[in-house]
Structures are given as C-alpha cells and as structure tokens.
C-alpha cells in the first residue's frame, strides 16, 4: 500500500475533468502565492526604489516604482554624508565578537549539560531555559545600573558582556548534543580521551550544523539590534549601522532617499547571509521554537 495509490481515488485517472480541475487548482494556487509574495515584498521594492531617487521624488502621486531619474550617486554619497565606514566597522566588530563568544561558551556549557552527568545539572538547566522566556525589559534597569557603576557605558565591552552569555546558545546546542549518541563519548573515554578533548575533537566537529544555526541567528540578531546600542552607545564614533540609519531623520526635514539608501546597505549583508544559510536559519528556529 503506497501513498501514491491512495492519493488517487479509483477511477480518477481515466476521467479527464479531474485532471483539468487539478490543473486549474494549481494555477489558482500559484496565482495566490505570487500575489502574496508580491505583497510581502512590496516594502522592499519601495526601499530599493526610493534609495535610487532624488529626495524630492520619493513621495509622488502616483508612486514612481521605477525612478525616472536613477540616482546611483546616492550609494557613493552616503559614505561621505555620514561616517558609514565607521558604523559598518563597529557593527561587524560587535556582531563577530559576540557570535564567536556565544558559540564558544554556549557549546562548551552545552557539553556539560548534555554529556557529563552530575548532581543538580538538570535543575540548573531549567533555570537557564526559564530566563529565555523572561522579557528582557524586566531586568534591563539593574543591568543598566551595573554598567553605569562599572563605568562601561558607551563601550563595546558593555554590549559584548550583555549579549555574549545568553542562555539561548546553551539551549540550542544542548538540544543538538542530546541527539548525539552517548556511546560515542563512552568509547572515547575508554580510549583515554579527557572530557575536554572529547568536546573539542569529537562533539564539536559533529555539531557543525547546530553551530551554523546558532552563529547565523546570533550574528543577524546582533547586526539588527537597536535597543542595546541605543541605550549603551552614545558617542557617534561607537554607533552601529542601525543607529546611523536614523541620522538622516532631522528635526525639521528628513532625507528620505538617503535613509532608504542606508537601509538597503544595512539589509544587503543580511540578505546575502540568508541566501547562503537559509536552511540553518530554518532548522535553528524549528529546533528551538524560541528566539534569543
């Protein structure tokens, strides 16, 4: 009994109308899907189109979806109008350092939670998981006071400390380690490998897909983070690209075209990362069902 046999009720195959109906259904489905995709992508179309316009042409009735007078110059001007290079450098630096630390401490701790048996382990893990669901705003104030007292406001270190030790990474990696058979570690122990070498030489290489998921999710989260940098980074030299985007919003007038140019530049790296690592994103989310 195979699925294909049951898929088709008896007699359906010879009858023409059934096949036609199915084809009509398929065309209808694709029409719906294409319309939905177009609607979802519309804001991106607007972003791209406005980024190539003169500021005066951004709001016209009707909207020029394809600019009459394409301003490629916006994409060169933005580097001199605002310190875009600095913003990008800061964002790349923060995202990279936080991602690396999260990977290292997360996978290390996950090994302790998944492959070493000790008393109190599971209770501690539940405590970790519980804080993932806690709203960050609930402890934002004491965190801020601590950073002020430590004299760390307006430093990259404050953000690195706040974001590199999240429980989310531990949780994600631990879920993956639980799927690796314990016998593997057991065999390595008999061969005389220390726990640290089992982690480094056996488990870590085996968990590349999970590491990739965690790395991509953390990197993108940090890249897009707004509130963290907004609260902690005040000096313009320390700003990230997300803070920089707002520098075109003036008190009296805003340069919408350049704002969109900046948005395109901030979204582009994420798009590239997403296109290459799509399945790791999806897998990471489906595994955890939780967000960092």
């Amino acid at each position, binding site marked *: 009994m195979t699925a294909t046999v049951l898929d088709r009720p008896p007699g359906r195959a010879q009858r023409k109308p059934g096949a036609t109906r199915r084809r009509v259904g398929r065309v209808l489905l694709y029409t719906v*899907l294409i319309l939905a995709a177009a609607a979802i992508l519309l804001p991106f179309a*607007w972003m791209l189109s406005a980024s190539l316009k003169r500021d005066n042409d951004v709001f016209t009735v009707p909207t020029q979806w394809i600019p009459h007078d394409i301003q490629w110059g916006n994409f060169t001007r933005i580097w001199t109008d605002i310190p875009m290079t600095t913003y990008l450098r800061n964002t790349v630096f923060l995202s990279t350092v936080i991602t690396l630390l999260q990977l290292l401490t997360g996978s290390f701790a996950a090994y302790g939670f998944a492959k070493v048996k000790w008393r109190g382990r599971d209770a501690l893990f539940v405590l970790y998981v519980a804080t993932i669901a806690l709203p960050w705003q609930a402890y934002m104030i004491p965190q801020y006071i601590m950073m002020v007292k430590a004299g760390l406001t307006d430093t990259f270190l404050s953000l690195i400390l706040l974001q590199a030790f999240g429980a989310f990474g531990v949780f994600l990696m631990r879920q993956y380690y*639980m799927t690796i058979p314990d016998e593997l570690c057991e065999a390595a122990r008999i061969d005389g490998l220390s726990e640290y070498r089992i982690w480094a030489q056996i488990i870590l290489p085996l968990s590349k897909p999970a590491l990739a998921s965690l790395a991509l999710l953390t990197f993108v989260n940090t890249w897009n983070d*707004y509130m963290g940098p907004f609260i902690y980074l005040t000096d313009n030299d320390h700003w990230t690209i997300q803070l920089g985007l707002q520098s075109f919003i003036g008190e009296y007038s805003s340069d919408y075209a350049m704002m969109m140019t900046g948005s395109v530049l901030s979204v582009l790296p994420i798009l590239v990362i*997403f296109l290459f690592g799509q399945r790791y994103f999806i897998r990471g989310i489906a595994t955890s069902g939780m967000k960092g």
Partner: protein
Amino acid sequence: MTDLIAASAEKAPPATARPRPRRRGPGWRNTLIGWSFILPNLIGFVALTLVPVVAAFALSFASWDGFNPPKWVGLKNFRRLFKDDATMTALRNTVYYACGHVPLTMLAALGLALLLNRKMRGMAFFRAVAFFPYITSMVAVAIVWNMLFNPQYGPVDQFLHWFGVANGPGWTTTTGWAMPAVIVTSVWRDMGYYMILFLAGLQAIPPELYEAAQVDGASAWQRFRAVTLPGLRPTTFLVLILLTVQSFKVFDLIFVMTGGGPGTATLVLSQQIYQTGIVDGEYGYASAISVLLFLLVLVLTLTQFWFNRRRER
C-alpha cells in the same frame, strides 16, 4: 513557571528528550568536570541575567536615584503605578497591541504554513520570501513602513484611493490609527517566523491520518477540522505562548516607528520602563513597572497552560 517553560520547550518539534540509562560514575569528579564546562557561560549568565532579575524585584520595593543609598518604601511604587496616568495608558496600549498582534499573526502564519506545506516547485522560494521580513533590521522596517503609511503620498493611501477612499485615516500621525498601523507592520514582520513553527508542526502530523480520512471520503475542510487542527494543537499552544510574551515586551519597532506617539497613543510598558528608569533615573519605580510586566507575562502564560491542560482532558 520553570516547569511550564521546560514543558513548552519539550513541545518544540524535534526536542529529543529520550530516557537515558542512569549510570553511577565517580560523583565528585564528574561534578567538577561538569561545572568546569558550564562555568565560563555561567559566570556571565549569573552576573548579567540572574543577578539583575533578582535585583529588579528588590529594587521595586525601594526608592533609588543611583547616588544615595536605596531607601525601602514597601509597596509605594506599586501604589503609584496604578495612579500614574502614563503607566496605565502604557498598560492599556500594550494590551491593545497584543489583542491585535497575537490573533492576526497567528492567522497569517497558519495560513502561510497551510499554503506552503506542499511538495511543489518554488515552495522554498515562497517560504524564504515570507520569512525574510523577520530578519530584516527593525529600524529599516520601521522607517519603510512609516513611509508606506505616509498620509496621501504613501502607497497604502494610494491603494485605498483605488477603492474610493479619498483620504486615508492618517495612520501614524493620528492617535486613533497609529496603533493599527504598528500592528500591521509587526504582523508583516513576524508571520514568517511563526510560519516555520507551524510548518514543522504540520510535517509532524503522520500522513497516514490524511490517507485514512481520504479513504473515508472526508472533504478537504473535514480533513482540516479532524486531522490538521488537532495535530497542530501542541504547535498552536507553543506559538500562542511565544506570541503573547513577544507582544507584551514589544519595544523597538514602536519606538522607532512612532516614538510612543502621537501623544501617548502607542506608548507601551517597555517604553515606559525605559523612560522612567534610564531617562528619568527613577530606578525603583521603573523596576516596579518591570515587575508588573513580568507578572503579566507570567499570569498569561500560566492561564494559557492551565486552559490547554483542561482541554486536553
């Protein structure tokens, strides 16, 4: 709370919690090794998450400006909270936002998942399209949607114009329509994320159930009612909890899009915590609002959990 979260975490699709045989090893040695693995992360975790959580509760009963020693004031902060117009408005707005964001996102995500749960050409592309808004920077999303909602000149109002609406409602520039505009934006952003959870849930439903239903002559709608919906129960529950928590802590999207305005039309609890705590430096009072937010999320999660239990019986 902790049991509950562990339980909901277990519900995450491939969470593999298989029973392990208990073995007795040299106890203290393993304990030492175990702790040594966890310590690097634990130090950061305790110092920067656990201590602040406890401190927030302690501070909510104190008055503190950050310089002089904190003063114990009992429930004063909480009494003030319920008399404070701004905080009460923020509470109402947060509930308003959640009432829009939770059901709409859920419907959109489920609809997308049902549409895209097929083995056909191009499905991967459509899924990617639906998911991408979720990883787009919040600032870019907020700025673009603000422009789309621009009264008269924005594409949303031009679209409405086709249907005979001469003047749009003004969207983010008016107190009545700013919140709906924010909700639309956040549904657009979040639906792809929850779609993935629903897709994982749909794929966990055994195909034999559909085959059996088809043999019995069930229509597509009957199959949806009798197989899909019950099969999705654990996922729906997880999504409901995650969405509720997410709604109650909404912050940056609204903050960038409207700044809480016009007036206090979109001021939410998180922004009120930020305003009273970090801007005004009233650490005790801000912590009391944090505790309120925390308790709200806790109560809602527990209620949903209890409700789910009862329906399962």
